[in-house]
């Protein structure tokens, strides 16, 4: 028995009959921040979704242990109740459902022993709003409807703050944000990080990692983690692009061509 929070072992995942993840191995311990970097189409978002149980992602091989238990048979809500949280790359708009109502329902589902009344929840929510410096009016609007890109991402961080997960997966939380919004969102994540929380940052660019410092950096390419290291690996990727590392790690011509194709001129 290790004190690992999350163990991903030889994970193979298919989406619509196509293998996207081809044997991912990763271990995350309490209090650690891991960055998973990779080019477009490498399987980053697939990894995020399969951890939260999104329908349509079929695990064909391998397992995912969370606090020692295999979670792959659990429904998304059961995983959330165990403390797993995904900050969506593209948060969904839910018409007619207010953020505050949504969050109270979620909070009470995740914390069955600490049910909060509408009033008590409102006060608790206000603490989180103040902590993250989010405009209060956001929570009385319908979930993500008419939100700007930055507001949607802030709303994700607010949800994370409210639910208090043990494992947070942040899928391209930096995408579509200007530098001010990025600083704001990163500051929020840093406030929520701590010795009991494991964080997985999924990103294409190093930019985010200047604001949230990861302990480990992994490179995901063609459905596998091809290289792991410290922060210096992120810097190298920024300087050299993904193709260089791909070649070094002995990716097939075909896979390299795909990286080249998806990344375009950036490689």
């Amino acid at each position: 028995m290790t004190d690992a929070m999350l163990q991903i072992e030889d994970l193979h995942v298919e989406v619509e009959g196509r293998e996207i993840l081809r044997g991912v191995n990763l271990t995350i311990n309490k209090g650690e921040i891991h960055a998973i970097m990779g080019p477009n189409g490498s399987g980053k978002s697939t990894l995020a979704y399969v951890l939260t149980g999104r329908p349509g992602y079929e695990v064909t091989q391998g397992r995912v242990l969370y606090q020692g238990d295999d979670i792959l048979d659990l429904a998304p809500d059961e995983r959330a109740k165990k403390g797993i949280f995904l900050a969506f790359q593209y948060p969904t708009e839910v018409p007619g459902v207010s953020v505050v109502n949504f969050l109270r329902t979620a909070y009470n589902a995740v914390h069955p022993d600490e049910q909060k009344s509408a009033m008590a929840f409102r006060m608790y929510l206000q603490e989180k709003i103040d902590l993250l410096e989010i405009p209060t009016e956001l929570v009385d609007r319908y979930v993500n409807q008419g939100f700007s890109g930055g507001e949607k991402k802030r709303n994700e961080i607010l949800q994370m703050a409210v639910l208090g997960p043990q494992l947070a997966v942040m899928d391209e939380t930096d995408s579509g944000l200007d530098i001010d919004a990025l600083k704001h969102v990163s500051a929020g994540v840093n406030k929520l990080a701590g010795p009991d929380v494991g964080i997985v940052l999924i990103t294409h660019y190093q930019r985010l990692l200047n604001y949230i410092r990861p302990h480990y950096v992994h490179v995901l390419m063609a459905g596998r983690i091809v290289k792991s290291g410290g922060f210096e690996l992120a810097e190298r990727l920024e300087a050299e692009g993904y193709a260089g590392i791909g070649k070094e790690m002995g990716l097939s011509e075909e896979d390299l061509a795909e990286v080249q194709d998806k990344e375009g001129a950036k490689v």
Partner: protein
Amino acid sequence: MRNFLEQVKDQFTADKLTRESVVKLSDQLDEPGWLVERRLGAFDLFDKLDLPDPKGEEWRYTDVRRFDFDRFEAPVPTSSTPALTDDLVAKGVVVADFNSAARQHQDLLREHFFTEVPVDEHKFTALHGAFLSDGILLYVPPGVEIDVPLEVWRNVEGGGSTFPHTTVVVDEQAVVTFVDRFKSDDYAAASLCASVVEIEARRGATVNYISLQEWGRNVHHFQTQRFTGYRDSTVRSLAVNLGSAFSRAQVESVLKGEGSFSEMLGLYFADSNQHFAQRTLQSHDAEHTTSDLLYKGALKERSRSEYSGLIKVSKGAQGTDAYQANRNIVLSEDAVARSIPQLEIEANEVRCTHGATVAPVEEEHIFYLMSRGIDRVTAQKLVVFGFFGDVLDRIRLGNVRDELAQAIALKVEGEQSLEVAS
């Protein structure tokens, strides 16, 4: 002369919807001769009329050609009038059941019953005219504002029938809210309800009318509601359909007076094999009239709904502003919702907007909510509440709004095991 055998048989067979039953009902109520004649005239019409043809626009997709009337017993006359305070009686407000109206308010009755909805409209209004069994007449004199909603409860037994009638006449500048509740237990035997609502809002009057159809599972309900608005009047209606096996609601607002306004709200939620058919009319017959219609419905399991709505603008009804929207959310692959908006415009300075949508619950929305720890049923509930939100927000009676919110929650949660034959 009936022979002995027939007389014995009569004692053991409940009365069906026959001409004899009409006479018997009228006898029981000790009605004046002109009323008996009217009932019998209506019955003969019923006998003569064919069942509505689903090829016609008004009954499209609602095939009742094989509707069997022999299943139902003749109605037992009932009276369900709301009580009035002494203060309102002193102000001249009249609430009477059909029977006492026939004695004490004959003029009002003769003037207003069946003026807006003629008995010969179709087979079911004719049957209603023959067997009217639970009638209410409400008259609000000029300038009288009744701030407490008046409510009536309609009931029907298994195998039985009922023919409720609501006539509301609101005189100039008067204000009233009226709630019709149709509620019964679930019975194995099928029951029939054919109801008629006639509402007249005179100059500057305001009427809020709510019908709540929450029948037991084996009731077949044919509703005809017609509102007539005179100059500067306001009629707000809400038609709710949650219960019954089959319910057809025809809700019509006729704007006869300049500056009159009509709000028409509809809320329905069908499950198991329930079938709701709804037909609305927004008829603009005078200048500067406004109608605003929003009908929203949810469907689950194998239920069906049809909505067809007509905006009709007469020649000369310049400055008409008409809005019509029908939105449907479908919770299962087997449920079917149809929506047919129609326009018929003869004036040239008008603004008419209409829209119809039928969409499934988005799996994307459900997943997002579930990813935060909310179970599937609760997630569906949130999404369906969100869907009904704008209709619920517009319901002015808090208790009705709360009741409906509860009913919606139960519908989402519940799995209807009770299948009824349609």
